């Protein structure tokens, strides 16, 4: 009897889980809120599509770190990537992603941007900030004619370069004077401090102009020589103007030169087309598998199709809810413990996953074209565990065991090969994830998650379904399992615990 209670409980749990997965999978953002339990958790789940599916630009920059000391390099990379991030935010791109990769690479993802020239201009044109002093104002602009007859006008007429540029600036901040007007505080590095003190000393009472990309930003007049490397720009700023100026000054101080080494832009239409084709391919693939399982394995085949459907729902729900390294390790560990020693560990697996979810520690999986391919492929592989179990069960039936025990032993004996064979695929996905490009990472995640969930569905869902039918003494004829046997199956003995 205890066996039956456990079976029913498992079945109810599986159905609840499936219902939850259906809710999560709904295309319009499913909302999960724990406010009614006084837990501050609220999240609207959405499918995250990669740039190749929703359209956008992917840019990869390489920084030239040859002039930066070894131990300062990570810091320089970090400040370069935040400088780029500020530039993009100023340009109003939705949900941009800027991250460093490896030792000297910066990856920029701009969803929805398909005019790549525009994007590259925003990032690539490192603003050039420089300080100039007033030269001979009577000098007119000079024109030079080169060999090809091209006329160049000397820029910045009336202003002399000083060699002091954004490179020597260590930062700029907004501050307020006594009457509450915004000012801008500049802080130079040691080289800049020296240079700035020389410049100010030589130009007391005269203006020093700050140029950004060739146009005058501000023209403060020097009051005294400044030796502490700090300069305050006063002027008629609004707070917003001051903030923008500070942002420009700070992003002007890109610490290292960067070079665009690869870029990929996909238009939204091509992405939509790929999504549609993948969905069609996935559905047809599923139908082919269902047909095959039905014809070849009959009753267990039907159950496997249900298990597979639950598998697909669960996997997709996990992609939407998200993952983290901690979650994968904890859930994987408890899951294997559940199979190896006691099923109670299975509860821990779910508790830990939902716990991390409610703590906000999960990141949704970004689905790229390769990721969807990985998911579809994992459906094909998910059937494997079912097939192994069925084949073993059939063998046990052929040897003359009655159905309940044949199912039990079939599961028990199939497990070592299921475990060993899937671990080799998991090793591959871990290595692919560790070294891959974003597209390959997505493939590795969907395939890896797929394999783990397929183990769960084969062992829990398929087994529970099979035992439900057997436990009720219905549909136990060996024909339903695709086994021909001369002797008719014996009646089942009930109440037998393993």
């Amino acid at each position, binding site marked *: 009897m205890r066996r039956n209670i456990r079976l029913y409980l498992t079945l109810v749990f599986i159905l609840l889980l499936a219902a939850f997965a259906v809710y999560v999978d709904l295309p319009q953002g499913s909302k999960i809120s724990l406010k009614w339990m006084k837990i501050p958790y609220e999240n609207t789940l959405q499918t995250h599509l990669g740039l190749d599916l929703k359209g956008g630009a992917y840019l990869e920059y390489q920084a030239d770190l040859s002039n930066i000391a070894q131990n300062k390099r990570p810091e320089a990379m970090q400040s370069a990537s935040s400088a780029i991030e500020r530039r993009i935010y100023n340009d109003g791109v939705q949900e941009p992603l800027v991250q460093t990769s490896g030792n000297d690479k910066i990856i920029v993802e701009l969803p929805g941007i398909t005019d790549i020239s525009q994007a590259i201009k925003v990032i690539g044109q490192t603003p050039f900030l420089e300080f100039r002093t007033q030269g001979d104002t009577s000098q007119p602009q000079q024109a030079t004619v080169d060999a090809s007859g091209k006329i160049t006008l000397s820029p910045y007429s009336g202003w002399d370069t000083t060699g002091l540029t954004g490179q020597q600036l260590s930062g700029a901040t907004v501050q307020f004077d006594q009457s509450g007007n915004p000012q801008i505080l500049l802080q130079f590095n040691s080289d800049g401090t020296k240079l700035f003190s020389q410049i100010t000393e030589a130009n007391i009472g005269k203006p020093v102009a700050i140029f950004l990309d060739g146009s005058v930003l501000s023209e403060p007049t020097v009051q005294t020589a400044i030796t502490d490397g700090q300069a305050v720009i006063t002027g008629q700023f609004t707070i917003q103007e001051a903030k923008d100026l500070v942002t420009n000054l700070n992003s002007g101080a890109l610490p290292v030169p960067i070079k665009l080494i690869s870029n990929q832009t996909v238009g939204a239409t091509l992405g939509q087309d790929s999504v549609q084709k993948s969905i069609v*391919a996935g559905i047809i693939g599923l139908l082919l*598998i269902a047909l*095959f*399982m039905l014809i070849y394995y009959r009753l267990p085949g039907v159950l496997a199709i249900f298990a597979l459907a639950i598998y697909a729902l669960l996997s997709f729900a996990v992609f939407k809810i998200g993952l983290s390294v901690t979650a994968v390790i904890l859930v994987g560990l408890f899951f294997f413990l559940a199979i190896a020693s006691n099923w109670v560990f299975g509860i821990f697996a779910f508790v830990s996953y939902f716990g991390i979810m409610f703590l906000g520690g999960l990141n949704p999986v970004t689905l790229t074209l390769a990721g969807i*391919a990985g998911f579809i492929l994992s459906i094909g592989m998910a059937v494997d565990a079912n*097939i*192994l179990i069925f084949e073993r069960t059939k063998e046990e039936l052929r040897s003359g065991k009655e159905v309940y025990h044949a199912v039990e032993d079939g599961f028990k004996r199939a497990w070592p090969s299921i475990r*060993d064979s899937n671990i080799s*695929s998991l090793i591959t996905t871990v290595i*692919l994830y560790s070294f891959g490009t974003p597209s390959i990472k997505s493939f590795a995640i969907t395939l890896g998650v797929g394999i783990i969930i397929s183990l769960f569905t084969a062992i829990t869902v398929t087994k529970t379904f099979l035992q439900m039918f057997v436990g009720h003494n219905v549909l136990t004829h060996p024909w339903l399992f695709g086994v021909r046997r001369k002797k008719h199956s014996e009646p089942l003995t009930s109440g037998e615990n393993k």
Partner: protein
Amino acid sequence: MLDIIKHYKFWFTVSGIILLLGIVSLSVFHLRLGIDFRGGASIQISAQTRPDTTKINQVLSKENIGNFVIQQTGSNGVIIETAPISQTQHDQIISDLKASVGNFTEDSYTSIGPTIGSQLKSQAIYQLLLVSLGIILYIAYAFRKVTKPITSWKFGWAAIIALLHDLFVVIGIFSILGHFFGVEIDSMFVTAILTVLGFSVHDTIVVFDRIRENLRVESGKSIEDIVNHSINQTLVRSLNTSLTVLFVLFSMLLFGGVTIRYFVLALFIGIISGTYSSIFIASPLLVIWQKWQDRKLKRA
């Protein structure tokens, strides 16, 4: 019961021929590398009706960009591949093309510098070695309890040889496809290869697992019989599993996008080879090796 071990020479010859063809093609034609490995740019455009490729050819010949390839894609698209170009060159090409063939949409534009290509290449080799190492270690661990008469490291080596078999079958076939049909190798291809390796071992392990079990249960019998019996017991499962995977791959090949077609094809070939090698290569190898060693022991 199929006697696979008895006819091992036939299966080894079949594999030998395929591998030989592949290796000859590899050494003569090499692999056709895609732009992510050699660096270059790829522009995909489409319009209501397919842009005129002869006109595109004329426009591109005038630009100073070196060699280029123009390919038709889908029902109304064209893919242009060139050496690495700058952003200014790209903008110039697009505006010149629009002037010549009329308006179109730029569906995608990829440009990869030559340095990143060589990095990806070394990364691919690195990954391949890591995956193989991980698998060898895992098999040695999984089969650590098997000692008599076949030691666990023999299982490991047999699985690795089957794995190399699959690797060279896929690479060889793609070398031939590359030469005759212009199929290119990209980083997705490497991903496919690594997935195939995982699957190949996956399949081999199921057969070996049965051999491991039968070595215990049927300890009186000869190795040939045990291995042959094990193969037959797992045959249906091996074929069915591969079939279901092939079903989805087949569906992706027919209905999925053009973008991942060759990725899926590499998986398709690899999975067929992986299933074949675990039955017809890895298992007979175990027997041959063991018998060779027994003979050596007897002589000594």
